[in-house]
């Protein structure tokens, strides 16, 4: 993505104003005509008003026959998109990157950021007629705490107590302060269900749509909830989700008009789609990043110079070009994406440098260290290809890496967190501190690189409890620098989310969090005719 496009996106999302965009564009040397053209297209988007009616047909990757309507069990696009259609969240992660009220009408943070009080919206009813109150919220939050199979269990470990203060007020107490806790509640697992509910063959929620047909891994349909409490959302009469996991089949379904919008367009087809005047690509740089993790405490990876040799030995630009057709951003060996307001912009970008790799390998004092990279496409589609490119670029610098392709089955069980040198990935998190804590925190169960640094630990705790933006920023910047300089994780790329739709679809806009409007497509998109 060019820098100009980047600022344009920032403007679309409301992060920078029109004046700032013009200034940035001028600074980049864009012609006046180009700038005004760009502004016109931005404003045309903004001026579109949603139209009611029609059936929105989505062709989505990321569905399985083992999917369930239980919000805690969601792992991939189909259920995330469908979940946000049938249920509401406490807090919405807006397109401007900030938390917005949904079921939580407003909230209040006590100093130290360990106590949070949420005011629950009144007059919201579930699809079974029950009125939502604090009890439902307490139950819905507790679903992810303690003995549970929920995917949000890790993030919710920080909660020490959830308490009902009044029928419309809930207090959440954290074990230690977290100024970004509102972001934790934007987690796609955390959706509101009625108190005591456990029959997941039905979807009883407060969302914009009512479940009609649920055939997991095949097709899921819903019709508009006539009593929906939001008046400016959920525009179409019905949604019809077809699960299409094969990427060619998905694209062909869009091209032949069998669906209106698809997610995860293969980067190599993006140009073909763009050339066709009937279709549009929705591109969102975001927090999803590929990872090659070493174990910081395991020889030979406990050797700082060897780690540097490997960091200089991977050709990020080549990976971006070959695997992502250029639709990705180079990583800087820390997990914070450029789209995050806390991204450290002063850290020099690490690039492939054969000489430096050679230099550091020599300095490490190791001759032919055993470097066996365990890779699998179970980590992410393309992980094995990425490993092969890494092997080649490192070999050019004299660093010999052996590849071991692991069976997809059991990868997360037997390889990840067990092997000292593995491919993996991280989905982005809404808040920078959240991302740093989950993968590099001192007691994070998923600290795959066994990273432990007293300074980092101290900064993380301080930054989380700090509510003053000006004081937090230098702390988060320093944590990125520590990981960049000493971390045992190579972050080669941040991948863009790539969706596509035919031009009859409106309101399908980029979001850095996830594909399809961060999973909110059903309630945000509309059909123009």
């Amino acid at each position: 993505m060019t820098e100009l496009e980047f600022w344009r996106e920032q403007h679309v999302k409301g992060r920078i104003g029109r004046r700032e965009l013009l200034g940035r564009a001028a600074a980049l040397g864009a012609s006046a005509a180009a700038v005004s053209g760009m502004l016109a297209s931005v404003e045309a988007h903004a001026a579109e008003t949603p139209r009611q009616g029609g059936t929105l047909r989505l062709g989505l990757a990321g569905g399985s026959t083992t999917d369930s309507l239980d919000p805690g069990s969601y792992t991939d696009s189909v259920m995330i998109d469908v979940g946000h259609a049938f249920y509401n969240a406490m807090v919405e992660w807006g397109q401007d990157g900030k938390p917005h009220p949904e079921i939580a009408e407003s909230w209040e943070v006590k100093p130290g950021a360990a106590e949070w009080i949420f005011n629950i919206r009144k007059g919201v009813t579930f699809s079974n007629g029950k009125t939502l109150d604090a009890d439902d919220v307490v139950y819905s939050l507790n679903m992810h705490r303690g003995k549970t199979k929920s995917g949000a269990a890790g993030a919710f470990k920080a909660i020490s107590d959830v308490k009902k203060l009044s029928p419309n007020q809930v207090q959440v107490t954290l074990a230690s302060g977290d100024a970004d806790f509102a972001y934790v509640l934007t987690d796609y697992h955390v959706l509101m269900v009625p108190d005591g509910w456990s029959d997941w063959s039905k979807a009883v929620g407060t969302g914009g749509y009512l479940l009609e047909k649920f055939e997991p891994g095949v097709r899921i349909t819903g019709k508009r909830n006539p009593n929906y409490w939001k008046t400016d959302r959920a525009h179409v009469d019905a949604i019809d989700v077809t699960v299409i996991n094969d990427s060619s089949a998905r694209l062909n379904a869009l091209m032949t008009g069998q669906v209106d919008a698809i997610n995860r367009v293969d980067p190599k087809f993006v140009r073909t789609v763009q050339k066709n005047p009937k279709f549009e690509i929705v591109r969102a740089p975001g927090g999803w990043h590929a990872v090659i993790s070493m174990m910081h405490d395991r020889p030979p990876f406990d050797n700082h110079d060897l780690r540097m040799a490997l960091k200089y030995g991977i050709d990020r630009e080549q990976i971006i070009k070959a695997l992502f057709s250029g639709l990705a951003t180079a990583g800087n060996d820390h997990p914070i994406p450029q789209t995050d307001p806390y991204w450290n912009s002063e850290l020099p970008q690490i690039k492939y440098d054969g000489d430096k790799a050679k230099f550091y390998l020599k300095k490490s004092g190791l001759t032919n260290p055993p470097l066996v990279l365990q890779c699998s496409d179970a980590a992410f589609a393309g992980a094995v290809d990425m490993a092969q490119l890494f092997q080649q670029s490192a070999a050019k610098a004299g660093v010999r890496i052996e590849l071991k392709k692991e069976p997809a089955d059991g990868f997360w069980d037997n390889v990840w967190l067990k092997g000292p040198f593995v491919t993996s990935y991280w989905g982005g998190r809404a808040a920078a501190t959240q991302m740093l804590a989950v993968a590099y925190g001192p007691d994070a169960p998923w600290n795959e690189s066994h990273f432990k640094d007293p300074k980092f630990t101290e900064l993380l705790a301080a930054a989380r409890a700090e509510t003053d933006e000006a004081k937090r920023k230098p702390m988060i910047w320093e944590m990125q620098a520590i990981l960049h300089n000493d971390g045992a994780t190579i972050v080669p790329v941040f991948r863009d989310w790539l969706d596509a739709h035919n031009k009859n679809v409106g309101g399908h806009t980029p979001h850095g969090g996830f594909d399809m409007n961060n999973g909110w497509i059903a309630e945000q998109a509309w059909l123009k005719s």
Partner: protein
Amino acid sequence: MRLFGHRVPLTALIGLVIIAVNLITAIGAPWIAPFDQANVVGDAWGDPTSQNLLGLDNLGRDLLSRLIYGARMSIGLAFVITCLSFALGIVTGFAAAVLRGWVDTLLSRIVDLLLSMPTLIFAFIVLSVLGTDLPVLILTIAILDSTKVFRLSRALAMNLAALEYVEVAQVRGEGLWWVIRKEILPNAAAPLIAEFGLRFSFAFLFIAALSFLGLGVQPPNADWGSMVRDYRDMINLDAMAPLYPAGAIAILTIGVNFVVDWMLSIHSHAHGDGA
């Protein structure tokens, strides 16, 4: 043209040439290929140039070189697997048909059992447990494949064993091995040879099917089946990439089967069929 005293028709000649070229390519891959199979020499899906005659692959490696190295891996694997599975399948199949009784029952039940497991799932479980080393891969596919050969050779031998001259030989006191070698094998050869030609090309595709489950040949080694898999999407962009390895498999299959057909016709001539 004549070979071993038989006239060689044009198709058989083409078949022989195809097989010879493939074998030479497979054996001489390191000397023939212009680049190493793992070397990244340019951008992904680079266009054909005078240096990279077929262009580059999904990671920017020379496609022609991958194809040449792929011949080595694919033909080698397919040949070993098919030979193993035929040796295993024919011996057990004939033994079952000739010996009958509990041997037949036991072998048939075991084979039925193996066959009744969905192949991919079975291979998946075995390879997940035993690992994906090359010998394990070869043995697993060979055993799975041999069940199909077993059924065919048993069915063929059953028909033959019911014929008088085989029964006569058994009554005469000839041993099992003699009966199989002298009476059954020559008479069952034709369908078996035909099956060999087909099974051979299935082996390519099966290896590729395994790579679908994250099993199979280790990177960066190339094999034709997996190349077709990796490049298949490019069909949508009117690219030729997936058609090269697919074509290579098809040409070799056709070559092998041309020769097989020729052997069939020699066989039926030898047995006095005037057709």
